[in-house]
């Protein structure tokens, strides 16, 4: 039986526009790879506009390590490299050739070695057969561009080329507002293969965190090769951060890999079929989408053609977010692209021209707050709320104590960690647990923060400084 962990601290924000399970197919006109979505490396473009590419052709190469690549998720022609300030590359777009579904040939290891007697895991790292498999599998992941889809903690970046993870955490559900079901239409064979491959690459274990709905299914698929744990409770139960904190917290000096189950299935698909599959199922949702539902599309697909099938609300100015409303990026609805690792597009009202007279005194039941100072919080209203992107307050110093803790399911004092991060006290940051967190873990604290501070940015900057100074 899978262990059940109940996440108590958290919050399910009732954002209007949750997606129905209706699924449509989408064929993008163009896709783009955004190097900023793959932090931890500097990316050098190795394809030029006009080049013909197939699925898996490298578009970018890491300056730090030539083996790590970002690949084209489709076949087509490289359209343009968009640059921003100081020639910083924003993305490389590829015009899709719908008539071709060719894929580069990736050299795969022949077969997974038989487990050593007594299933002694430690033997894997001194047994030549296993070590050869590991080297080949790692090379295959790097060549196929799947390595870049992994994340490592500490620092929440693409794993270093030489790292061996102490444990690997996989989340099989997304608990963010209006998120899609990650397990939708996944092949069990792919999941199992992915588990087998990743299991061979870690010193420790493979942990899969799932919601109660899929526990049974995953337990059968994993077949004891991974530790399946059921997580109950509100968001962020589906984030890997709290799952790690609940099962096996990171100690200093350890490296964990994290990914979601769809990336795991993509890895399994590669090893099963020797082909690459960058298809994904996204939810198009949010208060400004009138017919929110799921869409099957491709990583990096252009937002314009995705949104063509949707009726949008009549707010004068809308904000399109690639990702959920807590951690996603604002993108342009006309020439923006789906960003990684998000499997969601949210559309909300921008709201900067809303006139709200003395909003701080409002008794409206349409304003959402977890605090019982507003009717929504006092009466625990659960109807759908029509959020817009306003801060609804001014920037202040941290005043209320304990409000961040209430949605932060870690054995960490967020307020102290944030303060240490703001003043760049590295020793304190380490001591207080900076290695265990990613910016996304601070999304809910940032949402409830009365002082309206950009907490995720503070953590992201702190992690980046720490990483670069190492």
């Amino acid at each position, binding site marked *: 039986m899978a262990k059940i962990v109940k996440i108590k601290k958290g919050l399910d*924000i009732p*954002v209007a526009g949750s997606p129905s399970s209706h699924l449509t197919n989408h064929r993008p006109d163009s896709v783009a790879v955004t190097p900023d979505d793959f932090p931890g490396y500097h990316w050098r473009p190795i394809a030029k506009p006009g080049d013909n590419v197939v699925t898996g052709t490298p578009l970018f190469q890491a300056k730090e390590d030539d083996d790590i690549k970002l690949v084209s998720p489709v076949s087509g022609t490289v359209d343009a490299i968009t640059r921003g300030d100081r020639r910083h590359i924003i993305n490389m777009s590829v015009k899709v050739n719908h008539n071709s579904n060719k894929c580069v040939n990736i050299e795969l290891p022949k077969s997974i070695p038989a487990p050593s007697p007594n299933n002694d895991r*430690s033997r894997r*790292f001194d047994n030549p057969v296993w070590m050869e498999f*590991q080297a080949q599998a790692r090379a295959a992941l790097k060549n196929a561009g799947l390595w870049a889809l992994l994340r490592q903690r500490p620092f929440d970046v693409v794993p270093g080329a*030489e790292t061996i993870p*102490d444990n690997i955490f996989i989340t099989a559900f997304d608990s963010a507002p209006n998120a899609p079901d990650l397990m939708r239409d996944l092949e069990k064979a792919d999941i199992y293969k992915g588990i087998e491959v990743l299991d061979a690459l870690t010193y420790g274990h493979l942990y899969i965190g799932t919601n109660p709905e899929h526990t049974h299914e995953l337990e059968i698929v994993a077949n004891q090769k991974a530790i399946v744990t059921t997580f109950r409770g509100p968001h962020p139960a589906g984030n890997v951060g709290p799952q790690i904190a609940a099962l096996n*917290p990171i*100690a200093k000096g*350890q490296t964990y890999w994290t990914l979601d189950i769809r990336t795991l299935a993509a890895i399994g698909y590669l090893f099963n079929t020797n082909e690459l599959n960058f298809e994904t199922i996204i939810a198009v949702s949010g208060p400004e989408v009138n017919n929110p539902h799921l869409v099957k599309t491709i990583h990096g697909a252009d937002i314009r053609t995705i949104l063509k099938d949707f009726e949008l609300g009549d707010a004068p100015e809308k*904000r399109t977010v690639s990702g959920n*409303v*807590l*951690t*996603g990026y*604002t993108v342009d609805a006309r020439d923006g692209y789906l960003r990684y690792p998000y499997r969601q597009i949210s559309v909300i009202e921008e*709201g*900067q*021209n809303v*006139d*709200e007279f*003395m909003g*701080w005194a*409002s008794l409206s039941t349409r304003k959402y*707050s*977890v*605090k*019982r*100072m*507003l009717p929504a919080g*006092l009466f625990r209203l659960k109807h759908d709320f029509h*959020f*817009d*992107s*306003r*801060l*609804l*307050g*001014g*920037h*202040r*110093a941290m*005043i*209320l104590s*304990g409000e961040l803790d209430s949605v932060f399911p870690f*054995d*960490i004092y967020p307020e102290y960690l944030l303060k240490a991060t703001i003043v760049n006290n590295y020793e304190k940051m380490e*001591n*207080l*647990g900076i290695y265990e967190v990613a910016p996304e873990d601070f*999304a809910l604290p*940032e*949402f409830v*923060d*009365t*002082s*309206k501070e*950009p*907490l*995720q940015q503070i953590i992201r900057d702190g992690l980046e400084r720490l990483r670069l100074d190492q």
Partner: protein
Amino acid sequence: MSKKNKLKERIDQIKPHFEKGGKFASFHSVFEGFYTFLFTPDETSSSGVHIHDANDTKRTMITVVIALLPCCLFGMWNIGYQHSLATGLADMNVWQMFLYGLLAVLPMIITSYIVGLGIEFIFAQLRGHEIQEGFLVSGLLIPMICPVDTPCWMIAVAVAFAVIFAKEVFGGTGFNFINVALTARAFLFFAYPSKMSGDNVFVSLSGTPAIDAFSGATPLAEVAQLSTESVHLTAINGEPLSWMDMFWGFNAGSWGETSIFCILIGMVILLIAGIASWRIIISAVGGALAMGWLAHTFATPLYPVSMVSPVHQFCLGGLAFAIVFMATDPVTACHTNTGKWIYGFLVGAVAIIIRCYNTGFPEGAMLSVLLMNCFAPLIDWCVVERNISRRRRRIVYRKDSTL
């Protein structure tokens, strides 16, 4: 709808004058303060989360002010009531009493707000920050914990001292380590002791001669002068005063803090709103009861306050008020949950210790909270250190990092 849009349009028209380079750029913070008071700021999120909880600091501080209102309104009435007792004017009705009290304290409240907010405005402008709302609460608290006869100039000096030296020098609301309102009170207490304690400051007579039996002592002062083993209290007109009377607040004292009933209403509001920490309140009450019980068990006429039963201690002086409104100040109390339990307990216990065994000070609650404010960072430090050492102890089982 259209009307308020027009108002906003008008304000938006004059807005450029207050921005950098405008005619009134030096009033930018003040303008910003009033603007955001009238209209919810339309700044949208630029990084991180795209949606925000609707609560902000304005709402938070106003909720605290609402929680203070029962005490405040009752206190005003009580000033009039005490006046009628002291002068023997039996024909004052409820509204006359209230009006008398209102007029007595209004200058104090206005002075406190003008001085405090003025300083806040100046500092916000100097720093280029928005105006912080913290003083909305402190500005009302300060008059409420002073005797009704405190001259306005004293309030002004105390407020200026507290706001500048307890708050602004450290960076403003959120950075202060001691409670601003209690700092003002402590300043007055040590700078002008004759106006802050004794028998002549807690009842407003305003020139009317008092009746013969009049004694302006507060119940706490009475208890402190007891020489018999049994505790019998009298109201200011010499009539007996029951503990129940003191629960409702019909006694003399600093005008905002006499009614335990109104303090309880405020406590319920603060707890429901989630601003005050229930941990601090429970542990402070526990601390006061424990220490009160200990003192009462070893009661001696040498220290008369120790003869009061632990429960009755709450009806005396400003203990209950300090626990609900001062000790729970989220900025100056402990920030960790474990710390809050320790902090609260010590606030209650130290208040009773000072009250019982230090005959130099009539009330211990103020000093106790200020003392514990100073210790709160240390308590938090210990709690956070425990978390750190727990993290250090995690075993790293990694065997070999070479590939």
